[in-house]
């Protein structure tokens, strides 16, 4: 790994520690934004510029804005929920996760396969990192997952709206086709 990558990795880890460590949800949200930027930097370094752009645009931009908006909406920026690390359970959790990391590292060292199998294995496409190649693959091979993801987003919207919006009418004469039918 190049030196820059290592530096950015350390920065990413520090900022993610910040996300966990901060008592105030607002601070941790900001730390998360920082982490996302560092991750986008990693993508860029790896040559996937388009992905890095999307990362910054979608993740940092849209999702985090929404999160911070909700934090402000619920007025949580003031309360200091202390996720103190001293509690015995948390220490145990940290220990288990340490072991977990060790296990993952040992696993990752060996297992990575050599040659790619069925992907579009030519360096040019990857390197130019442009949207063109991704778009081309996305709408030929991955068309079904793409459509389903569309469905997914639509469902998420309907669900979020249904569940979060203020209750407009008292239960009895709720709008909707059935209620109307009853009225005749």
């Amino acid at each position, binding site marked *: 790994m190049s030196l820059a990558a290592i530096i950015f990795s350390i920065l990413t880890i520090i900022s993610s520690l910040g996300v966990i460590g901060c008592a105030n949800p607002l601070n941790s949200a900001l730390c998360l934004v920082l982490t996302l930027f560092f991750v986008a930097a990693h993508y860029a370094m790896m040559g996937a510029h388009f992905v890095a752009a999307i990362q910054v645009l979608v993740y940092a931009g849209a999702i985090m804005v929404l999160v911070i908006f909700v934090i402000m909406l619920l007025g949580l920026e003031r309360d200091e929920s202390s996720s103190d690390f001293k509690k015995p359970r948390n220490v145990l959790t940290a220990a288990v996760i340490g072991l977990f990391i060790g*296990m*993952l590292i*040992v*696993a*990752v060292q*060996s*297992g*990575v*396969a*050599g*040659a*790619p*199998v*069925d*992907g579009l294995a030519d360096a040019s496409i990857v390197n130019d990192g442009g949207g063109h190649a991704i778009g081309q693959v996305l709408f*030929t*091979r*991955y*068309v*079904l*997952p793409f*459509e*389903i*993801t569309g*469905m*997914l987003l*639509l*469902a*998420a919207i*309907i*669900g*979020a*709206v*249904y*569940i979060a919006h203020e*209750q407009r009418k008292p*239960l009895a004469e*709720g*709008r*909707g*086709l*059935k*209620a*109307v*039918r009853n009225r005749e």
Partner: protein
Amino acid sequence: MSTIDIIAAAPLFCMTFGILALLVLDLFRIDALPFPRLWWGVGICGATAFLFWPFLSMNETAFSGMMAVDTFTFAFALMILGGSAVTFMLSDELLEGQRVEPSADLDLLVLFSALGGIMMVAATHMMLLFVGFELLSICVYVLTGSARNQRASSEGALKYFILGAFSSAFLLYGMALVYGATGSMYYSGIAAHIGEPSMMLLIGIGLMIFGFGFKVSLVPFHFWTPDVYQGAPTSMSGFMAVVVKAAAFGAFFRLMASGFGSVSASWSAMVAVLAVLSMTIGNVIALRQTSVKRMLAYSSIAHAGYAMVGFLALGEGGGAAVVFYMLVYSLMTLAAFGVVLVVSSGTEAQYDQDSIESLQGLGWTHPLLGIAMTVAMLSLAGVPPLGGFIGKFYLFSAAVRAGYTSIAVVAALNSVISLYYYLRVVVVMYFSGERQLSWEPPRVLVFGPRLALILLTTGTLYMGIFSSRYYETAQIAVRSLMQL
């Protein structure tokens, strides 16, 4: 778009069109629908199921290898669509009782999750699997929280969401590790490149088992099930217990069989442990439950344990046993949840009345409900003439054929333990004299639930006696899946 893609796409188009049509109609509040909204949902499910029929005889993959068009997908699609249709029927006009504001959005979400479920089962590519998995999960999180102003429902939704997201992240990480270890996202690609199972692969498989284990509610990952089933409105917990679990089992089986089939020696030990734990702990805790929904939740955990036994005997007909068992399991559990739904969806006093005492004397006052519940309970317990017994019988024979006789004995003993709490329900309904509770479940049943209960009960009985035809289709399904 080769012909196979068209055949594969037809049902999906039909379903999507139905959903969007419903959305638009509801959006503009045009009551063009001559019949209540729920029958629209049933209509869509019916049409899609009809379009799935050509899958029965085929055995290829469509959408450039992403989606499998074979009997296995057909079988599970039928189950998922059937389950959704029955959920629609069951919740007809009973939603008020569940403190749920009746609106088209719910039906949409149910249909979306059904679509997601089918995609999961049909997926032969990890990405499609993941996206289907998420579509199903997202919709069900919302459905759980659909009784917005009830604390239990929102708490259930919260728990389900956090733990669901947590486990899907693990699933995803598992996929990444497997992708790293094998170099391909296609099940066939994975199977081809597995070779000597490296530690990274095994951990990947382990994490994916965690993700699916959570969805199927196997024991170490089952903690959410009782709370969510109790919190969610009964029709939704019924939907989750049946459709979601069936879809998760379908995808899990396809992944394990065609993806990691060749290294089954390595992960079968883990599956065996999960199976035994689920059976035993599921049954043992269920003994002490007073709430019917929580009891049914633990019973579904136990039954997930029984179904996992099928995974141990991939070669020797275990798969067919799992497919058949899921079919029978869906019939029994939906019937049970249906009865609880009807009983607890009366006046204000009833809403959180899901205690076993609420069923008191039901056998005599409401013969249909009584019989449906008794058949469901006895079938879940595995008493012979009913479907539950035949399902268990297939599972036992597969396990014994694969040499896991000791697990078959454990399963037999667990059935005995389960007898106790299933029979307690029958005791409350028939043996403990007249009804002391003030309220009565609705005397004359609305057409929807009545039809659904009759269908489910006769289905359970039918499966008990004439099960061979369905078992053969299940065998064909699994055979096609293995060579894929």
